């Protein structure tokens, strides 16, 4: 008659002691009932030890208690932190009228987006027609005025030579005549100065377009500047001031 194995069929059968009979041999002998009482006691203890090693590593009772204590401390700390946060946040939370505030906001939004008879202006049909008719017309007039301005501007840049068909290749005078100084007489802009009535209407006296302006200047090797002084009628008169380090005479 075979005895039931104390740990079942999965019990390891490897040698537990390098010397003496192996645990498997002892198992066979235990099954045949050949073990004495002392051998059987030793076999069972050994078998139990092997079973514990197989199923789980040996557990230290002290380490278990230590980890448990640590966990308890951590849990207590977390609980304390939770209570502190709640105590810190609870007053402000109680002071905030959250529900009331959101209710007021939503009420305001609903009131503002619902057009009613008090906040709707009915645009009369005549006014709407006038607006829709004159706004584009005014835009067209503005664009026409802009086109006119551009054309007039370019008009000022064109030359008479272009208009009368004189080419730009007109041969220049080879030797310019040298003017002779006149005797002392009328000052610049006195007797011989034409009156502004003689000037073209486009440059009437005192208009902002009067005066002289510098278009291009080459100072050469000298330092110079360009500015304007006011003339008799306030028109700007161009002045080119150029340094001269060399006195020829």
């Amino acid at each position, binding site marked *: 008659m075979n005895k039931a194995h104390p740990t079942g069929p999965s019990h390891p059968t490897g040698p537990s002691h390098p010397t003496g009979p192996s645990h498997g041999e002892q198992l066979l002998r235990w099954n045949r009932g050949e073990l004495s009482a002392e051998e059987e006691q030793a076999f069972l203890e050994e078998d139990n030890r092997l079973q514990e090693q197989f199923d789980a590593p040996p557990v230290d009772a002290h380490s278990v208690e230590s980890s448990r204590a640590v966990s308890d401390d951590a849990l207590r700390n977390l609980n304390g932190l939770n209570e502190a946060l709640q105590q810190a946040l609870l007053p402000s939370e109680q002071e905030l009228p959250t529900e009331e505030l959101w209710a007021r906001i939503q009420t305001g939004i609903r009131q503002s987006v619902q057009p009613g008879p008090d906040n709707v202006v009915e645009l009369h049909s005549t006014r709407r027609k006038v607006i829709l008719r004159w706004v584009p017309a005014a835009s067209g007039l503005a664009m026409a005025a802009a086109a006119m301005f551009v054309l007039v501007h370019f*008009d000022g840049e064109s030359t008479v030579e272009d208009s009368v068909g004189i080419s730009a290749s007109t041969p220049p005078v080879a030797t310019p005549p040298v003017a002779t100084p006149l005797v002392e007489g009328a000052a610049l802009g006195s007797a011989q100065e034409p009156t502004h009535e003689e000037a073209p209407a486009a*440059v009437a006296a005192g208009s902002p377009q009067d005066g002289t302006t510098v278009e291009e200047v080459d100072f050469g090797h000298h330092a110079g500047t360009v500015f304007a002084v006011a003339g008799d009628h306030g028109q700007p008169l161009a002045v080119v001031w*150029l340094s001269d380090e060399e006195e020829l005479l």
Partner: protein
Amino acid sequence: MKHWIKCSPTNTAVPTLVASAVFMVFSASTLAAAQPGNGSPPVNASPRATAHTGEVVVILAKEEAGTVDPTLASMTALRRPPFDSFRSLSRLSRSEIQLGVGQEQDVLLPNGRRVRLKLEQVLPNGKLRIRASINRPDKKDYLPLLQVVATPGDPFFVVGQSHQGGTLIVGIKVTP
């Protein structure tokens, strides 16, 4: 209080826009056709043969106390800054010039340089485009180029040449 404007779709905007565009194109084409060079002569067109007169006045200005030439009293610009820093003004010369479009003329200065003037263009608005230079003969030692657009009768000035302890003021103007 917010106001809402109710507008129903209308078909008046599109024809109005088309009419505006037509008006704009018509205005632009009309203006373009009226420009000089496109068939209509300019109001102030001057034939090339027309000579413009003018004058070049040379003034010796000094900061030392002195007298102001009475012939210069009518030149308001010389009484304004920075010319008012000169307490002595004497006119050294006054030269009359005649310029046709494209023609040049030289004016001798008392320091040996020459003012070379050329009437480049008469603009349709009546203004004159004038080129000027001040140099010794065959050299470019002072003012190689100055191009001015001038209203006829309004002068421009070139200042700064040293002469006899003073400064030369060259006033140039061209009349119609």
